[in-house]
């Protein structure tokens, strides 16, 4: 029988305001289990602003500082500077930001934080759009996906542009550690969070965060969809430590992307050609990842 490796103590409490099946809530719960209570979180305007519940309540068992949407990277530098100046030891300084607040409007502050080599962990939970404001497209929305600002009607057929490669952008800054996480694989997620926790320097965690209302699927399917995303190569699990790539889940041949696409209403309009185009893109990205792993071994 497999040994239970997920720490039992909870730092995210019931009574939170997340939608049923929210990947961002699952990610937070697991990330905090890995980090422990000596953690200060900086949270920009995002779903988690609301999920944590309004004043005077909080669904989080750690200290939390709210910051404007584009400033999480700078906030982490400020928190770390104060922690160092005030002699707070063993304090995890952690940002928990959405994909829009990271890869779009927050990119400058993130780049600054990485370049300054701020000793902090930046977690981007990727629900592939501005979900808290009602499902608008972000730079992280995948190509072709329906959102309220990339409708499927008239001349519009979902988002015309591709998904921004945030890991590529982050890795160009040579962080101490960067990894992709998926709450559907909690052991892998915990191992990476604990590894990040015990390193120093800028660390970046990109977590998959499926969104039932935004992606148009039934909330009980979040874990299944998460497993599918990784096993089809849509969201591969890997880590990069000091420039060295390692794929942390490799199950032989990738599953076809078709099942992942068909499971979600946001891709309902996809033609067989659209699916084929996505399949090709995923294959190329996967081959690139395999190459990087081999080259940096």
């Amino acid at each position, binding site marked *: 029988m497999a040994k239970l490796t997920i720490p039992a103590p909870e730092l995210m409490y019931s009574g939170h305001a997340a939608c049923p099946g929210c990947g961002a809530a699952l990610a937070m719960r697991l990330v905090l289990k890995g980090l422990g*209570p*000596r*953690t*200060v979180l*900086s949270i920009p305007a995002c779903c988690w*602003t*609301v999920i*944590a519940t*309004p*004043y*005077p309540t*909080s669904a*989080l*068992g*750690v*200290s*939390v*500082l*709210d*910051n*404007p949407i*584009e*400033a999480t*990277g*700078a*906030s*982490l*530098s*400020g*928190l770390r*500077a*104060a*922690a*160092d*100046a*005030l002699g*707070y030891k063993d*304090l995890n300084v952690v940002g928990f930001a959405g994909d829009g607040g990271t890869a779009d409007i927050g990119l*400058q*502050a993130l*780049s*600054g934080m990485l*370049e*300054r080599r701020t000793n902090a962990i930046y977690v981007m939970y990727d629900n592939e759009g501005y979900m808290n404001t009602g499902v608008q497209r972000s730079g992280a929305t995948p190509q072709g996906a329906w959102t309220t600002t990339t409708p499927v009607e008239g001349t519009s057929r979902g988002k015309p542009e591709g998904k921004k490669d945030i890991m590529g952008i982050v890795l160009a800054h040579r962080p101490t550690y960067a990894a992709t996480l998926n709450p559907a694989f909690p052991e892998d997620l915990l191992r990476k969070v604990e590894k990040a926790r015990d390193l120093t320097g800028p660390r970046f965690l990109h977590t998959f965060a499926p969104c039932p209302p935004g992606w148009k699927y039934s909330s009980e399917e979040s874990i299944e969809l998460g497993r599918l995303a990784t096993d089809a190569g849509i969201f591969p699990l890997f880590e990069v430590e000091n420039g060295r790539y390692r794929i942390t889940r490799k199950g032989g041949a990738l599953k076809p992307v078709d099942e992942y696409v068909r499971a979600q209403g946001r891709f309902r309009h996809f033609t067989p050609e659209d699916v084929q185009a996505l399949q090709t893109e995923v294959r190329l990205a996967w081959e690139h990842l395999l190459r990087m792993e081999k080259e940096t071994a």
Partner: protein
Amino acid sequence: MTRLVMSGAYAQSYAALLAKVQVVSAYPITPQTSIVEKLADFVATGKLKAEYIKVESEHSALQVCVSAAGLGARTYTATSSQGLLLMHELLHWASGMRAPIVMGVVNRAVAPPWNIGADHTDTMSQRDTGWVQIYAESNQEVLDTVLQAYRLAEDPMVRLPVMVTEDAFYLSHTVEPVDVPSGEVVDRFLPPRDARAVLFPGVASRLGSFTGPDHYVEFRREVARAMDNVPATFASVEAEYERLTGRCHGGPLSTYRTEGADAVLVTMGTAATTARGVVDELRAEGKKVGLAKLRMFRPFPTRAVRDLASRVDRLGVMDRSYTFGASGPAATEVTAALYTSPHHPTVSGFLAGIGGRDVTPGEVRRMFGALLAGEPTEIRWIDLEEQQELKIDG
């Protein structure tokens, strides 16, 4: 105490050094740069033990201070003009989070067209952000006011951010002798920031949060109350500073030769020095004129203005910025302060020194001349009088 010859920019740096700030964040902009360059020297040579964060924008500069102050650190940053405008969103965050940040601002014109001269448009555009604003006239006043600003900002009755401003080049790049208090004196005046951090590491807590109308109003009211506590707190801070250093810059509205005056000119920043000289000349000529230096613009010293109005029939207000579609911001505020006052002197608005244009004694004489002649005007662009207006429309 030591007397050093220094620029207004360095006066900011020396004050931050004496205040033993723990976190400095900086993004360069002319003419603020020498403030943060000097601080970099202080940190590099070990004179100042602070975390010095070189950020990638002014927006991030202020976020660093807000977050660091959230954990309990004493913080400093400085900016000017466009940089201050970029900070606008964070200015609201700082006051709403009750972060006792002190920021130096070198008052500079706003683009377009690009202009780096003295002008108050940058800070006047931030008057509704919940920051205390104090405008300095001399390098000495800069240094003293920054130290006072920390006491004011960190006072439990206030807990609000404070910006201490100085006119570009007239102060920032002009050297004057400045009396620098000893470290012991400053330590007595300004103890370390209360160790009770707002955010407790390792304890469930939240700074910022979100609320509906059920609590939001109360939060806003708390900021308003804190602002209302500034005049009394500032008076005691100034009194203690005077006891320790012998220097006082005269409260939020500092008056000069206003006794029995027929007309008083209200000015801000360095224009007060020019105006003071003109007051002396006119008094020597037998004309009863005086000066009121508006040091604090937020909170606006309504009571002090009403007190002045009870003694004078004609007020002039010189603004170094213009609110398009309205008037000079200081003139507007002075006028508004008097509406519910029993005394109603005439109020004339003058615009001068826009975009670094020189404010000459001759111009100040003209302002007094108009006041004494009893010709109140809503607003006069003094910069454009007595010279050919530059035609920009061909």
